[in-house]
């Protein structure tokens, strides 16, 4: 069935914005289309007058490193992220989270920008971007803006941007340096929709002696309607010894403050609480180990 009438492939952001303006809300930005086109087919959106494909815009397809900062264009695919040596080594959680999205065919076209625009409460890529404290560069209402990643989400399936008007350009974050590391893990339900029961991305920095947590960022999703950080859990870790005892304390705190709901198609609240403990333990231990060894081999790519 016909889902759109026109398909445009602009080569600059200005062209893309001009096209969106021209269609006055009757066109949507599309990147890989692995979510949007399926949703169009399922009737979640009306038939679009046009789709504006942003994957040929150079600024959206770049993946560039500048000292310790990396820029990942919104049109960079999950597969490109998984294959990026610098991300594997220095933003492992993003590789692990993008590596478990769909199968190769979906990862080959689905983009990080699309994952964020889709604004699922537990988008795998977005959970990691939150832990990486990324910033999104966007064009919103015609203005170029830089917003913290957490501000990109307004509710389940609702992002800050309006894809009939705005464009996500890319993401910036600081790569891991010595004594820093990240990890991502998730638990999937084997039945029904491919929704994570729970996903967890963690960034840690150990002190130079590698004995204590100097800083930590923890993102566990879905807990609330949008992805976010567990600040209380981070607070337990910071300044404390990087030991199993502290990790268990962090888990205890997480269990007190995080109240996962029973979600019919994901799992019971009780089970999800158990998974908070399991995921935090496994992910934190892995991140600490990576920070200590300086080695990171992504786990679970393509098979979770």
């Amino acid at each position, binding site marked *: 069935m016909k889902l759109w009438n026109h398909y445009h492939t602009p080569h600059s952001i200005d062209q893309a914005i001009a096209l969106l303006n021209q269609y006055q809300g009757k066109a949507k930005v599309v990147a890989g289309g692995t979510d949007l086109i399926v949703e169009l087919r399922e009737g979640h959106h009306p038939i679009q007058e046009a789709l504006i494909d942003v994957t040929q815009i150079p600024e959206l397809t770049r993946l560039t490193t500048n000292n310790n900062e990396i820029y990942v264009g919104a049109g960079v695919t999950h597969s490109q992220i998984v294959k990026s040596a610098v991300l594997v080594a220095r933003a492992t959680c993003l590789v692990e989270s993008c590596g478990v999205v769909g199968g190769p065919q*979906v990862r080959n076209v689905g983009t990080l920008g699309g994952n964020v625009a889709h604004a699922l409460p537990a988008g795998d890529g977005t959970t990691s971007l939150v832990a990486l404290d990324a910033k999104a560069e966007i064009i919103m209402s015609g203005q170029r803006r830089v917003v913290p990643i957490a501000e990109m989400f307004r509710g389940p399936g609702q992002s800050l941007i309006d894809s009939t008007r705005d464009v996500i350009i890319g993401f910036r974050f600081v790569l891991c340096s010595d004594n820093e590391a990240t990890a991502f893990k998730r638990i999937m339900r084997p039945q029904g929709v491919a929704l994570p029961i729970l996903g967890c991305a963690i960034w840690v920095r150990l002190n130079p002696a590698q004995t204590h947590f100097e800083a930590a960022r923890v993102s566990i999703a879905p807990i609330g309607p949008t992805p976010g950080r567990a600040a209380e859990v981070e607070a337990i870790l910071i300044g404390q010894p990087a030991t199993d005892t502290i990790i268990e304390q962090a888990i205890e705190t997480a269990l007190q403050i995080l109240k996962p709901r*029973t979600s019919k198609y994901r799992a019971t609240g009780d089970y999800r609480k*158990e998974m908070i403990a399991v995921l935090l333990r496994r992910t934190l231990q892995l991140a600490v180990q990576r920070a200590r060894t300086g080695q990171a081999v992504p786990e679970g790519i393509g098979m979770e």
Partner: protein
Amino acid sequence: MSKLDITVNGQIHHLDIPESRTLAQVLRYDLGLTGTKIGCEEAECGICTVLINGTPVNSCIFPAFKAQGREVQTVEGLAQDDGELHPVQQNFIDHGAVQCGFCTPGLMMTATALLNENSDPDDHAIKVALKDTYCRCTGYASVIAAIKSAASEMRGEGSLPVNEPDVSEPMHAISRSVPPQHVREKVTGAAKYTDDYVFDGMLYARTLRAAYPHARILDINTEQARALPGVVAVLTHANVPGENLHGLVYRDWPVLCSDVVRYMGDGVAIVAAETEDIAAEALKLIEVEYEPLPVVGDPKFAHSHEAPILHPHHPTGNLLKHIKVRHGDIEQGFAQADYIVEREYRTPTVEHAFLEPECSIGIPPGVAGHEKLTILVGSQIPYQDRNQIALALGLPEEKVRVIGTLIGGGFGGKEDITGQIHAAMLAQATGRPVKMLYTRQESLIVHPKRHATIIRMKTGATKDGKLVAVEAELYGDGGAYASLSDKVMTRATTHATGPYVVPNAKIDCYAMYTNNPPSGAFRGFGVTQSAFAVESNMDILAEMIGIDPIEFRRLNAQKVGTTTATGQVLRESVGLLETLSHVEQDMMSADGDFHWAWRDGHKAYAWGLACAYKNTGLGGGAPDRAEAEVEAFEDGSVEVRVASADMGQGLAHVVAQCTAEELKLPYNRVRVLLCDTDLTPNGGPTTASRQTFVSGNAARVTSALLREALTRSAAEFLDVPPETLYYEEGLLRHNGKSVELGQLVGWMKGNGLSSKVRHEYHAPATQPLGTGGDMHFAFSYATQAALVEVDMETGAVKVLKIIAGTDIGRAINPLMLQGQVEGGIVMAMGNCLTESYIVENGVPWTNLFARYKMPSIKHAPEIISHLIEDRVSTGPYGAKGVGEICSINTSPAICNAIYHATGVRIFSLPVDQDALLRAIRAGQTEVYTAWHDVR
């Protein structure tokens, strides 16, 4: 319309097409490259995979204009121009990785992309690459083997040996792993399934489905839809020319609903239009006024007095059928028992998820060279399709022709009528060919499923480990229409003692009408469900008695001389004990020092085992026959014709092998024509694991009759006594003299003799349930052991290994039969661990492929398969059924293993890791809920 420049398989195309096209549409409709299949249009199944600049993508959701200026490779581009197959194609053939062939292009394209990047992929790399490219037939083991072999060949190291099973006494063509029919077409993309056919002037049809699971229809207004430009016909119940009912056992299913809708898949109106989009648009313009009625959502409620009666004309109300087995004296039996276990089990509705959605094309008389109303369809029962179409259209059967195309998987799900009658009606009404292709989402809602069941099973045994009694009550959710519920639930009932000697049995089964999608045939035919209860109870009892579960089964196993609970004395071919000992031996030797269970960190490992049996053939007194026609030609070839379906399981090569055997011909000189009601005689339904036995025998006996005719003629031609003639590689020989088959046929024609024989084979008679005697003419037997890993922190269950022993009488084609076993096991793993078709008060929640998880290659365990060939004297060369027996006991074997690993027993499928973990944590030993029971 806009310009699209793309290179496809090296050829540059400048197309002028709408920008709304997907890449799959361009390939299939604009370029006629129908090797790329569409399975779901949700980017879920992966069978539409093509390569863009070498990268695999799902073409079903890939906008065509996104491929502007790029290079696309499809399955048609794999072979070289001179026809030499790509190593991936050749190895898929050689390793038996092609069954129905519908997913094959997607698997091969994904594999090709992998091999372009990785010249020596291990299992893990292959699983990562193919994780979201589904196959419902093979179970993936042969696919992995084929890819590794292709890689080896592409590295210049030669292909790898084929993992061919050991079989006894191979003959000329029987027990030989010949390639299946049409396999070359299937790997090149040339194979045509129904949706691959197009005709001049063809219209596209859609069906308006019910808006409620149960409602009275007050009014249907089609005026606006008719007025839409491009709409050629809109038909309702008022336009059904003949009887507005169909059904395989009971005629209770309206062609188009007139007064009441009984499930969400009910058809209310049908539209034929110039394009699919117009047809879809027209559906929105049809106004139907409903009065919603109370919904009967589950079989136990259906049996209660409060439930509204769904079929007022059915004499027993919502009780579609009460099926009874009575054997011995149940009270006395339990009085002898030292141990009694009684538990309730639940199994979910399960979807076949064949990868080819249903498609029918109706062609009116006088169009496209067809003299009569012709329907193209991939159906498991072409002659019954014809019967049902003719009745609905008010035509004599001879005025209707059903031509079976290749079938992209069936598994029981293509036995009932779906679009056949509708396509025929629209073709009649419009005078033009009409294609009715279901979307995946429509397919999910419409066709009958595996019955959800609630089974209360009570089993008693003595302290010596002898079974003494089984009492069971089964409720089957038959859904809105009868379909094959009567037969399926009968099989669940008669097999509810398991493959054991049970002197006293009382089993009651209630097949109920509800407002859920109808339930019908599904590989295992009810036995899958009852075996879960039987084999779980067996393990519980063994533990209570304190006896090894294998020993317990051995003590009670059916043998030659056993009387079954239906009163049948088993006279031969009872290979259960042999399957058990093979599996036991492998299991025990797997790790030297055998343990049922062990721990390694937070992972628990354990073995579990279960047995099963399954009838071959219709049984129960139904006449079971198949007619075949075999004709020899002057070019020395032979054609065998039978209207039996090959949905991927391989019936075509089975009949070809039988004919090649009887005529001692090279296999490649035998052609097979299947499923054309004008050209092929009736082979009956492809169900009940019957075709190898019944159509195989028909081909065998008919070929033997042709051989006799040929021998008589050759004797005359060579002037030698007929008894001294023998057949050898297409020649009839006598000492120094010989005549080629083709030459002989020419001589026969010249002398007015026919080289064609038609014969109807009748399988041994059976008796109806309740009358004693032979209810079935053969049973196949199986034992399976499962090795599972349970993550004790998450409850996640992984099947690492399955050891299978399967008694199939004889392996006509060992490699393809092994593919059936592997595919059956992986499909059954889905039944146990991932699959559940969810209906909420009559409304299917599972209305997307994305909401139904079937096993992917990542789930594929190591499978060790032993074929046990305990011949049945009446089977073709000793063979009996295989299609179902391999898919029945996997679920209880896995659940028994989970129990050994965790101490928690699962009573509701699919296994819910959530409930399992909570039980482990709480020290509970029994789990009675499945995942969607979460509130």
